[in-house]
């Protein structure tokens, strides 16, 4: 047994490696990126498995599913909103089932540290009716990942590991065990994997029929733990994932603690839940994300004869992540003494574009080109350039999801917005912008698409971009944008006047045009020169 200090994300990755992983796929996204970073690092050293970035989460999911079809162990990792992109194969993979062990690792971002929403992936697991593990700490992240592969093969189902930012990005010691050998190639049965209605109906029945067994597995899981305090019937706590740590943190020096059920799997271990509830008067549910457990206990009519508290009752906040303090308050414990700032006014320090960032030069030229041109709409996307929202740029009107800029600019142009401008990065364009540009080119929409080609996925730490350089230009031409309206500029202060002129020309052109602003990310250039 070895002991290593790992990020939560890395603990999942190492668990997968030791479970005999054949291939892992992912698209970068905070807080999940470090899972694939780690797999790539180990994979390059050992050459024992494939670890690779994909063009988007749907692609990654399908690549991993193909590995599972082939009977080998596969992992796909993504941030929570990435599962929206992969939702189509995800929902149907529940029906095909897994052949080789198949793990879907999803890292949620409650508090939206680096995200546009704080959706809770446990609902997706429930929606697809698959099994889901929610680790509370690094050791569990490692152990559950290993166990999840076995369970996936035993039950022939995809299994989800649900992470959250605070666990993904925290480091702690993990004890590792001997690795499991990889599987041999063995193909999935075609009647299970070809979801024609005639087969899909059979497969869906299997999904429904296996539910009672999944609940039994949850009840027997060593990760779900019920600790009863027979002397205290007033309060019982149901805590899942890292919320369990916050509860225990608040009782670490206490002589006695209330009865606590630690929930680490979904479906819920129903008998354990019933047992806890039967013993206490008030039930506090502490869970990170949306009130999934609390809502299922509450139902329409509440718990007869019991007081149920948590997020829905207002004892814990519905928005944002939990903390030791918010849980302490819900436990009705006295706050710890602490220092206070008094009336000294702190100024915020929001993230911002690096000094000399190419995006800043593009925004400067765009703002100038749009001066005096009516009421422009600038539709932006997910990446460093979303920081163009803040002063001094104040350059964008929207940011919704990966690739939304292109479709929104088309819709807005059709609604009468002029000039209608979309701004998207090279990797985001490859991820989800290409199909929308195909549509805009087919309709020759009066809009300008600006692709900020900084040759990398910058925001998440410089992963490789697939739609950059020459290939990017070929894609743009390939979807049908007229060659004379594909313009390449270099966003540097010395080309400012020229760039403004080109932008103006294309804004004035009544059809689809694409401007590619090419300059390498400063951070990546710096890293490269450091390595050299």
């Amino acid at each position, binding site marked *: 047994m070895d002991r290593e*200090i790992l*990020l939560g994300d890395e603990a999942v990755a190492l668990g997968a490696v030791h479970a005999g992983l054949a291939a892992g796929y992912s698209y970068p996204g*905070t*807080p999940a*990126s*470090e899972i694939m970073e780690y797999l790539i690092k180990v994979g390059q050293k050992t050459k024992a498995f494939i670890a690779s970035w994909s063009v988007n989460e749907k692609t990654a999911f399908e690549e991993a599913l193909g590995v599972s079809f082939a009977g080998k162990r596969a992992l796909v990792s993504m941030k929570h909103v990435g599962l929206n992109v992969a939702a189509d194969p995800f929902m149907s993979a529940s029906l095909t089932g897994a052949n080789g062990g198949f793990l879907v690792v999803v890292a949620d971002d409650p508090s939206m*540290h*680096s995200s546009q929403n704080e959706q809770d992936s446990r609902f997706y697991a429930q929606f697809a009716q698959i099994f889901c593990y929610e680790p509370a700490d690094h050791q569990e992240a490692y152990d559950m990942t290993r166990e999840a592969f076995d369970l996936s093969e035993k039950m022939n189902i995809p299994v989800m590991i649900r992470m959250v930012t*605070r*666990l993904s*990005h*925290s*480091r*702690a*010691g993990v004890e590792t065990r001997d690795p499991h050998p990889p599987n041999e190639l063995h193909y999935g049965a075609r009647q299970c994997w070809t979801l024609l209605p005639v087969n899909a109906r059979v497969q869906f029945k299997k999904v429904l029929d296996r539910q009672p067994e999944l609940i039994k597995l949850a009840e027997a899981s060593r990760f779900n733990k019920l600790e009863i305090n027979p002397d205290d019937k007033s309060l019982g706590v149901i805590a899942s994932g*890292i919320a369990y*740590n*916050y509860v*225990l*943190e*608040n009782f*670490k020096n206490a002589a006695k603690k209330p009865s606590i059920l630690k929930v680490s799997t979904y479906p819920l271990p129903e008998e354990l839940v019933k047992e806890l509830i039967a013993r206490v008067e008030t039930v506090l549910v502490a869970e990170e994300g949306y009130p999934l457990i609390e809502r299922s206990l509450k139902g329409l009519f509440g718990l007869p004869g019991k007081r149920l508290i948590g997020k829905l009752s207002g004892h814990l906040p519905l928005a944002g992540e939990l*903390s*030791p*303090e918010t849980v*302490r308050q819900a436990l009705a414990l006295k*706050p*710890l*003494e*602490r*220092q*206070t*700032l008094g009336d*000294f*006014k*702190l*100024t*915020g*320090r*929001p*993230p*911002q*574009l*690096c000094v000399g960032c190419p995006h800043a030069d593009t925004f400067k030229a765009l703002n100038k080109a749009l001066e005096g041109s009516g009421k422009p709409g600038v539709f932006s996307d997910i990446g*460093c350039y979303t*920081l163009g929202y803040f*002063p001094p740029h104040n350059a964008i009107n929207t940011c919704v999801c990966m690739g939304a800029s292109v479709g929104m600019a088309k819709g807005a142009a059709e609604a009468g917005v002029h000039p209608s401008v979309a701004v998207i990065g090279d990797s985001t364009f490859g991820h989800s912008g290409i199909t929308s540009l195909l549509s805009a080119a087919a309709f020759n929409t009066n809009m300008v698409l600006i692709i900020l080609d900084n040759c990398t996925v910058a*925001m*998440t*730490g410089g992963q490789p971009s697939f739609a950059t350089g020459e290939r990017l230009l070929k894609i743009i031409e390939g979807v049908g944008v007229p060659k004379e309206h594909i313009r390449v500029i270099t966003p540097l202060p010395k080309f400012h006047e020229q760039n403004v002129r080109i932008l103006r020309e294309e804004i004035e052109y009544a059809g689809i045009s694409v401007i590619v602003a090419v300059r390498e990310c400063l951070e990546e250039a710096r890293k490269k020169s450091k390595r050299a």
Partner: protein
Amino acid sequence: MTAIRKQDIILAGVGGQGILSIAFVIDNAALKEGFNVKQAEVHGMAQRGGAVQSHLRLSKDRIWSDLIPRGEADMILSVEPLEALRYLDFLHPGGKLVTSSTPFVNIPDYPDQGKLIGRIREIPGSVIVDSEALAKEAGTSKVQNTVMLGAAAKDLVVTEDSLLESIKVLFAPRGDKVLEANIRAFELGRRAAG
């Protein structure tokens, strides 16, 4: 003196100032001395010139929460004075604040520096070190983080020897020049803190 069983430290700074390097050095020293460690970090968007912090928890007992509860931090160690105050409500009434006096001004409404330092001085036992001047003296302004680590050294639960050893582990692969500058920075910070 009874052996100290735990130390909770908030590391603060601006994205890019190298607080994760400080965390690495303390972590490694603590592991060697038999502590359990949990270290919560900030990755992603906030790293782009925004306020960043790391919760570093060292304990001989089991550590539950990845986050330090407000009121439980034994120390705030900051590479930037404004950031030192941002997490003040994590510090318990007897906790220690160790900060650089060198402002990182990348926002238009940065507070008046005199008032800022004045407010920090009101915190009992606070240590303020001119990390920029000392880092330059050590050879490069890039080692301000190590200056601050040195300034905190005598109040850390781990020994200075262990800290120096993990400085070597971290910086030796980056060449002799980088390693020597960091060792000098550590010494200068340690002396400046008195």
